[in-house]
């Protein structure tokens, strides 16, 4: 039995925070330990600095500059962020991932799914919802016309594309592994590498997306 993942919940709706914490205590008993909660950016930064949690469940829309601001000011390098939001808008999803989150799930996620997403993020893996996978495929669609500075960052390998496609189709990691005849570990590696590209790529579509929406 591994030790429970230490979590801080950040959301500006008190009712929702309570709901999430109750759900985590029910579905994640022994797996997830909620250390603290915070309602805005300043509180969140203080809580992260004080508790140095493994994972911060981070609302994207937050008084004081949004979840991205928390990640920017966060003082705890070992802490990982999982974004949790009602918004499905592309600019929020991409902006948050590029701000440093290792995953993005929407608030309609079920308790057990949330617990496993937290566990995954704590282990250093990426968490992609089908919608996020769809955005990734959209952003990396087509072939890139100009030889970019770092070409490898700006396009997905065929294998990564396949993995993203299966995730977008609603496959779980295990099912992806089975479908492609690879191990779950390999799937996780592909996901992490896609996450890295999403965060670091200077690809035109991504930067235009961000600048169009006046993000980042």
């Amino acid at each position: 039995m591994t030790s429970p993942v230490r979590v801080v919940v950040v959301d500006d709706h008190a009712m929702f925070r309570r709901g999430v914490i109750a759900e985590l205590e029910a579905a994640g008993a022994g797996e997830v330990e909620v250390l603290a909660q915070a309602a805005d950016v300043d509180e969140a930064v203080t809580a992260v600095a004080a508790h140095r949690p493994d994972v911060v469940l981070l609302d994207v829309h937050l008084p004081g500059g949004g979840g991205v601001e928390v990640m920017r000011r966060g003082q705890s390098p070992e802490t990982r962020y999982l974004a949790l939001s009602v918004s499905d808008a592309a600019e929020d999803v991409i902006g948050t991932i590029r701000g440093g989150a290792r995953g993005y799930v929407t608030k309609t996620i079920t308790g057990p799914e949330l617990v496993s997403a937290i566990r995954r993020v704590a282990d250093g893996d990426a968490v992609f919802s089908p919608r996020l996978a769809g955005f990734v495929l959209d952003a990396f669609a087509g072939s890139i016309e100009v030889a970019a500075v770092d070409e490898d960052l700006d396009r997905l390998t065929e294998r990564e594309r396949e993995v993203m496609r299966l995730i977008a189709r609603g496959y779980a990691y295990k099912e992806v592994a089975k479908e492609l005849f690879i191990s779950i570990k390999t799937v996780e590696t592909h996901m992490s590498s896609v996450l890295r590209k999403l965060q670091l790529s200077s690809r035109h579509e991504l930067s235009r997306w961000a600048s169009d929406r006046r993000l980042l």
Partner: protein
Amino acid sequence: MSMTTNPPYEPRKAYRDSHDSVLGGVASGLARHLAVPVLWVRAGFLLTSLLGGLGVMVYAGLWLMLPSDTRFEEGPPGLASATRGGRRPGRLRRLGDVGPAIALAALGLGGVLALQALVGRGAAFWPAFFGLVGLALLWRQADEAQRERWNDQSGRIDPVRIVFGSGGWASYARVAAGALLVVSAVFIVGFEGASASDARAGLIAGGLVLIGLAIVIGPWVFGLASDLSAEREERVRSQERADVAAHLHDSVLQTLALIQKSSGDAATVARLARAQERDLRSWLYAGESADESSAASALRGAAAEVEDAHGVSVDVVAVGDCPLTDDLRPVVQAAREAVTNAAKHAGTGRVDVYAEITPAAVDVFVRDRGVGFDPEAVADDRYGVRNSIVDRMRRHGGTAEIRTGPGEGTEVRLHLSRTTTQEASHD
């Protein structure tokens, strides 16, 4: 039957790009309008500026004439409100944004010096240069302030904010430097070779004229501004309130009433809540349409209908999009049939739809994690799968493949080639 509606013809207009701007956004706006790389346009302006200042004139003219592109930012209400309330990150200026400006300024200075070396030190040269730079700074600040006025929700027109926007050292610096440069240009022209006391007399006279003008025109300008702002404030407020009220009434209130009526029936309540959530979400955030305007949007519409009819949640993820032409309708219909099947028979409350629309083909995957079935055992009189999905796709030159097994869930894959040469279906 085939009806193609053309959108009304709209002439393309050029705008100044207020997001990707070095000076006034003229070059990037022009580049977008002409569909050429922005670097060429900027280089063009620089080159023609060196040829007797033509580029500067053209740039200034365009800056005056072209409207800025973000008149009113019409984001989805939820995002707009989150941005206003400071719950989303604003635009951060990075050092990278300043880079081109510095490079261009250095080039411009080099050009100026080169020009000066060529033509010699003319009397009109430095005043003109100072004046131009000063004007550019002031106009730049006017753009900033205009943009902030548009984003300003209070609707008030404050004379100070007209000049400085919401302040910040950058706007104060721009106004101060701009005014200083323009004034020194005027002084260089006006008092070239004059004595200090002449200059002082001129300065006092000029100042008195300005003060007089301000006293005469001031109240009038102020009155006009406050009238305008009062009217604008009222109009904006009442319209917004009316819109939100209408939307809440049509959607949330009706749904709540329905939920109260059927509060005993858990399935109906869940279905209503889900439909309302989808509606509110698309209104607040994504702004994704669910009508017949495009293939992805038609799929979302079909999924929403099945959701409402069967009380399951259907998530549609679409990559790429295209207009919904007549030859794509069968795919949408087959997909709707597949989603309906999954909703009815799978026994789970959730269906995932993934559509990939490329210029070459349309692929739609409908997947559930339900009970699955044995395709061999489906009775012949069950038309759903065979007729509506497989045969329909085949008739229209596509393929449908069903992967399932008892207890394994079901996935229906629809494929339709979009290239004109109809490939024989490979099955």
